[in-house]
C-alpha cells in the first residue's frame, strides 16, 4: 500500500481532514526546503506537496511563478528535488511526499529513471500539471508497478467523461482545482465545489483534495466540509517570499500559519463533515 493511501486511510478512520501544504523546492534557497518540510509536518501537515521548479509554469499565478524563479536562480533541478526528498526521508519515514511539476524536466530525465528514483528517494506521488491521462499510459504503468501514485487534476470545466477517465488513471487521491484560473486566484464558489466533489465521488472511491485559492483557516474549513484534503499553496509561498532573507522566520511563520489551519480543521463540528 502506498504511503499516500495509508495516510488517507488513517485519517478517514480518525474522521480527520488531510492538510496538504505546497512549497516550491529550493525556494528561496535549497537549504531551506528540508527543514521547512519537517517544520510543516510538526505543524500538522499530513502530506507534503513539493513543487519542482520549471522555467515556464503555465498553470501558476504570479506568487508561485516567482517562487520558481527564485529556485531556478539556484539552478534547482528535478534531480536536486529528489535529493531533498531523500534527505527528508532520513528522519521522516511516514509523511507522504507528492512532487508537483511540469512535464519537460521529466522528459529529459526519462520516465523509467524518474520512476525508479522516486522509489529510491521516497517520493510517493507525482502530479504533472501538463500531462493529462490521455498522454500518460506508458508512464502510469511504470508508476503503478512501483506503487508511486499518479495524482490527476479535475477542474470546474471537467465533464463526467473526464471524471471517469481521471478516476480510473489516478491513484492516491484526486486533486480538484477549485477555480477556473491559475494558482493563487481568489473567489471560491463553495456551492459549486461541493456539487462537483459529489459528482467526482460518483466515479470512484479515491479521496478528493481541493486546492487553488485556499488562503487560511476560514476557507480551509469551508472546503473541509466537502473534501477529504485541503491543499494550500500560494498562501504559504507568499510567506516564504515575505521572509525570503531570513530562513528561521520562514519556518516560524509557516509553522504558525499551518497550526492555525490545522486547529480550525480539527475543530470542525463532526456533523458538518462530509
Amino acid at each position: 500500500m502506498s504511503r499516500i493511501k495509508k495516510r488517507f486511510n488513517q485519517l478517514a478512520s480518525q474522521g480527520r481532514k488531510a492538510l496538504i501544504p505546497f512549497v516550491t523546492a529550493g525556494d528561496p534557497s535549497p537549504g531551506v526546503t528540508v527543514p521547512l518540510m519537517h517544520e510543516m509536518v510538526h505543524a500538522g501537515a499530513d502530506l507534503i506537496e513539493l513543487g519542482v521548479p520549471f522555467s515556464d509554469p503555465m498553470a501558476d499565478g504570479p506568487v508561485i511563478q516567482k517562487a520558481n524563479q527564485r529556485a531556478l536562480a539556484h539552478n534547482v533541478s528535478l534531480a536536486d528535488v529528489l535529493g531533498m526528498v531523500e534527505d527528508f526521508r532520513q528522519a521522516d519515514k511516514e509523511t507522504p511526499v507528492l512532487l508537483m511539476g511540469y512535464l519537460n524536466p521529466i522528459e529529459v530525465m526519462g520516465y523509467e529513471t524518474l520512476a525508479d528514483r522516486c522509489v529510491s528517494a521516497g517520493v510517493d506521488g507525482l502530479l504533472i500539471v501538463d500531462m493529462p491521462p490521455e498522454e500518460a499510459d506508458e508512464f502510469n504503468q511504470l508508476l503503478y508497478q512501483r506503487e508511486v501514485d499518479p495524482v490527476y487534476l479535475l477542474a470546474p470545466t471537467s465533464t463526467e467523461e473526464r471524471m471517469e477517465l481521471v478516476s480510473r488513471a489516478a491513484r492516491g487521491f484526486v486533486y480538484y482545482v477549485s477555480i477556473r484560473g491559475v494558482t493563487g486566484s481568489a473567489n471560491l464558489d463553495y456551492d459549486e465545489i461541493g456539487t462537483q466533489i459529489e459528482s467526482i465521488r460518483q466515479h470512484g472511491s479515491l479521496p478528493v483534495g481541493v486546492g487553488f485559492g485556499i488562503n487560511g483557516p476560514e476557507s480551509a474549513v469551508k472546503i473541509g466540509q466537502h473534501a477529504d484534503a485541503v491543499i494550500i499553496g500560494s498562501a504559504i509561498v507568499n510567506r516564504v517570499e515575505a521572509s525570503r532573507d531570513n530562513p528561521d522566520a520562514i519556518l516560524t511563520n509557516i509553522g504558525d500559519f499551518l497550526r492555525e489551519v490545522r486547529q480550525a480543521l480539527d475543530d470542525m463540528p463532526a456533523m458538518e463533515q462530509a
Partner: protein
Amino acid sequence: MTTYSMPDDRGHFGRFGGIFVAETLMRPLRELTAAYEHYMKDPDFLKEFDDDLRHYVGRPSPLYYASGLSERYGSNIYLKREDLNHTGAHKINNTIGQALLAKRLGKTRIIAETGAGQHGVATATVAARLGLECVVYMGAEDIDRQAPNVYRMKLLGAEVVAVESGSRTLKDALNEAMRDWVSNVEDTFYIIGTVAGPHPYPVMVRDFQSVIGREAREQIQEQAGRLPDALVACVGGGSNAIGLFYPFVDDKDVDMYGVEAAGDGIETGNHAAPLCAGKVGVLHGNRTYLMEDNAGQITETHSISAGLDYPGVGPEHAWLKDSGRANYVAVTDDEAMEGFHDITRIEGILPALESSHAIAYAKKLAPKLGKDGIMLINLSGRGDKDIQTVAALEGVEI
C-alpha cells in the same frame, strides 16, 4: 487528393504534437476541436472565410518573379507576396479563420500572444471588425523593439499587456495568454498565431494558412510551367512555412527548406533554432523540438527578429524534419540583414526581418539549383515595422 494524413485524431504528428495542458483546458480544447471539424465542412463558414480572404485581406496574393534578385543570386526566384496582405503579413489568414470560429462559438472576448506584433495586429484587426473585446499579450522586450505595431494594436482598440516574466519575449507572452485563457474560458477565445500549442491549434492554423501554398502551387505552374525545385520559408513557430509547404507535401520532387534564426551563430548558443540545434521536449501544449538546458528548463533564445525569437516550433515541422520530408537550416542575424538589404535595393521590396531569413538562405541555395532552377520563397511580411530596429543596428537616428 493527398496521401499525407497527419495528424491523428488526438493531434499527434508521429511522436510530436498531442495535448499537454492542465485539466481546465481539456474541455475547451475538445469543444474547439469539435467546432473546427464541424465548420471546416460547413459550406457557409468556408464561403465566409473565402470571401473575407478575397475582399478584406486582398487574396490571392501575387506570385512575383524577382528578376533582379534571380540574376544577382543566380537562380530563378519567385516571391509569394504575403507582405501585400491587409495588415502586412500572412498572419491575417489565420486570425480571420479563428475569429469567425470564435463568433460562431458565441465568444465575446479574444486573446492572443504576439512576438513581432504582426499576429497581434492581425488579431486586433479582426476583433475590431467583428466587435470583439481584444487583449494581446506581448513580451516587454518585444514591446520595446516593435513600437509601431504596439501603437497599431492600440489604435485598433486592443489592450496590449506587457509581459515581464521570464525572458520577456514570445514564449512568456504565450504562457501569460494561457493563464488568461484558463481564468476566462467561458467567454474567451484564444487565437494562437502559429502552428504550435495543443491540438487542434497546429492543424487548425495549418489549414487556415495553407491558402498560401494552394495559391502558390497554381500560380507557379501558370507562370513557370512547372512546380518549383524548392520552397523556402522562415520558421519561428512555423505558420507561414507550413502554410506554404503543406499543399506541396505530396509533390516529392519539391524540396522544402525551413529557415530558422541562427542569431549570433548556432555555435554561440545565442540563437532560436530548435530544429537545427534543439532537443525533443514538451512546451506550450505539445511535444516538439525545443531549446532547453540539460535539466529540461527552457532556455532564452536570441534573434534579431522578434517573430522568430521562440524556443519551440510547431510539431508538424518536427515531424517533417524527422521524416526527412523537409530540410531545416539556419541563417545568422548578419546574413538576414544582408538578405534584407539585397531585396530592398534590388527589388524595391522592404521585407520583414523574419522573411529576410528566407531571402538569406535563398542566396546560399541558388548556386545549388543553378540558373535553370526555380525556388519559391514565402515573403511572409513587410518590413515597415522593423525600420527602427534596422536603423538602430546601423547607428542611424530616425
